[in-house]
């Protein structure tokens, strides 16, 4: 993951102000400041790739969508408890190592096809810490995507001022 791109994208990510203040300049740690748990650069890289495998880009999305993993990290920081944060980071380490399944490989260096295969496994995994980590990542990715300026403004999925109510609208 290109750190410069991630930081450039910070101001555009919705709620941009808080991320501008919190970007980290330590090359070994995550690119944004986290208050309640620690992520390494490698963990951030694997999360970024995981998010893009869960929800691939077409290529024309804005920075906000390209950096959805930052939203995932932020939400894990502020909206999950210590035990979930531990499960999250431990499992990201397992993803990096590639030792969580008989068919798994180190995630970052795998091919696109291998990444898809592994996310397919994660998607149907039995209940385990790795499954919990994946569910958090997927849930927060979907939440970030659905609540993005890209979807709401560009695609028009949300109206701030509907100015109407019709309980008999035709399907």
């Amino acid at each position, binding site marked *: 993951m290109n750190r410069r791109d991630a930081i450039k994208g910070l101001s555009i990510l919705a709620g941009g102000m808080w991320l501008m203040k919190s970007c980290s300049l330590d090359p070994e740690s995550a690119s944004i400041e986290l208050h309640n748990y620690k992520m390494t650069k490698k963990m951030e890289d694997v999360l970024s790739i995981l998010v893009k495998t869960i929800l691939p880009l077409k290529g024309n999305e804005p920075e906000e969508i390209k950096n959805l993993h930052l939203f995932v990290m932020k939400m894990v920081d502020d909206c999950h408890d210590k035990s979930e944060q531990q499960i999250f980071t431990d499992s990201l380490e397992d993803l990096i190592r590639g030792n969580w399944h008989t068919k798994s490989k180190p995630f970052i260096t795998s091919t696109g096809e291998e990444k898809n295969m592994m996310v397919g496994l994660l998607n149907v995994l039995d209940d385990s810490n790795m499954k919990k980590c994946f569910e958090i990542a997927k849930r927060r990715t979907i*939440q970030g995507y659905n609540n993005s300026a890209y979807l709401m403004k560009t695609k028009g999925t949300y109206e701030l*001022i509907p100015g109407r109510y019709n*309980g*008999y609208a035709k399907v």
Partner: protein
Amino acid sequence: MKDNIFDTIVIGSGISGGWAAKELAEAGLKTLVLERGRDVKHVKDYPTTNMYPYEFEHRLEVPLKLREENPIVSKCYAFNEDAEHFFVKDTEHPYKQKKPFDWIRGYQVGGKSLLWARQTQRWSDFDFEGPLRDGFAVDWPIRYKDLAPWYDHVEKFVGISGNRDGIAAIPDGIFQPAFPLNAVEEYFKNVLLKSYKDRHVVSARCAHLSKPEPIHIAQGRVKCQNRTLCQRGCPFGGYFSSNAVTLPWAEKTGNMTLRPFSVVESIIYDDQTQKAKGVRIVDTNTKESYEYYAKIIFVNASTVNTNLILLNSKSKRFPNGLGNDSGVLGKYIAFHNYSTRVYADYDGELNHYKIDGRNPAGGGYMPRFRNLYKQETDFLRGYATGFGASRSTYQETSSFGENLRDNLLNPKLGHWWVGAQMMGETIPKKENKVYLDLNEKDAWGVPILNFDIDYDDNDEKMSKDFVDQFTEMYEKAGFSNIHSSIDKQPPGLDIHEMGGVRMGRDPKTSILNEWNQMHDCKNVFVTDGACMTSTATQNPSLTYMAMTARAVNYALSEMKKGNF
């Protein structure tokens, strides 16, 4: 006039305090309005009102730390990232719970009028006659005819949407066009009309402008824009709040002085004149005490805080709290039973309809039908119901990759479903009370309160009946997947706690007379929820507003006669 001498003092700037301020200031009286929280000016102080979900740091979710630090207020449906700044945090003003009670508060100018659900229904004589007929509490000293002209008065100014439904349990008012029922709500309404004598679904009556009148334009308000973001404060003035309506109106007269950051510690009683002469406050910023004096005092601090102030207003004449010769002050607190809901699905020929836009009225309302004309069940009184049908889109999220992305971008239309929320009348009992702590005080030197309030057997039987009745009605309507929930939640989340300073005919068993005036301290009036002798089933704010306007009118006439 000296800086600390006024004609009238209003304690509290919420939904009833704002009305007292408006009526008194309009009458030419120099009126001091004391508010314990910060000022919130209409529009200017609504920081989140125009924000999109993506502009919130956590997309409207309340972060874990805030939830863990505030387990009580976090239970409130409106406590989200967009409005949490209008709620009192749990540790801000601590209280003791002898029995669990979720005390939800809004300490800022406007109080909970910024946050309320805007639902409004008039009381009828089925409600005012309730205690007398069914043998609980004490007889109300008023009837519907006494309040009817004041409902008219406040409804015109507030702007209420609804239909003239002709239902005795909820008298018709002065309405702007209703927000109509949707296809499945209307269907259920018709099923009930065919199957029962007295069960009605009406468009929920609410304090939203569907067709503003000249008075509303003069207030600076326009038509509601269906945002359903009311808890943030509305830049259109589309719903009623003290901030948008009554306080600016009072301010315009030049007769209102608003003092935020003012915790009222007590009302000062003058043993010589046998009247209240003023109030003692603690400034929340400096912690210094000040006294303000006036001929008339209106206490509108919100039910429990009104009780607190009066209990703490001790004197030689009133050693147990102002006006408390009867000993009932702080007792007979009641609330609305909101613990029970019944849901179901609809699948039928109305599937070719869906919902477009948003309904600020929230859907339908069913007035009380149980024990209305006579006692018929094994529990006293009954329940109103918030009933609504909904149909939203959903996204198929079980896959991943391009498939997931396509599913997110192409949500599917879900099925219709219905929900019924019980709003049950509870019986005021002596044992349900609040009282001052003997040892602990809050940050401003005021004793903290103990809450000793609970449900009873009547509430349990009523909840069971609600589930039984709605199951039967849903079955008649052909709804499927009928399921209910009875939450073991403490009282309080209804945010309709009432009583403690009840009205009554007899000073031996009540604090206030028919004019909301203290029997034993004639220049003090209480017109917020504390005055309520019983709770009925209706959302109470409209009744508080009408009582306030009526009481002010009486106070003014007494003032003209020289009785203060």
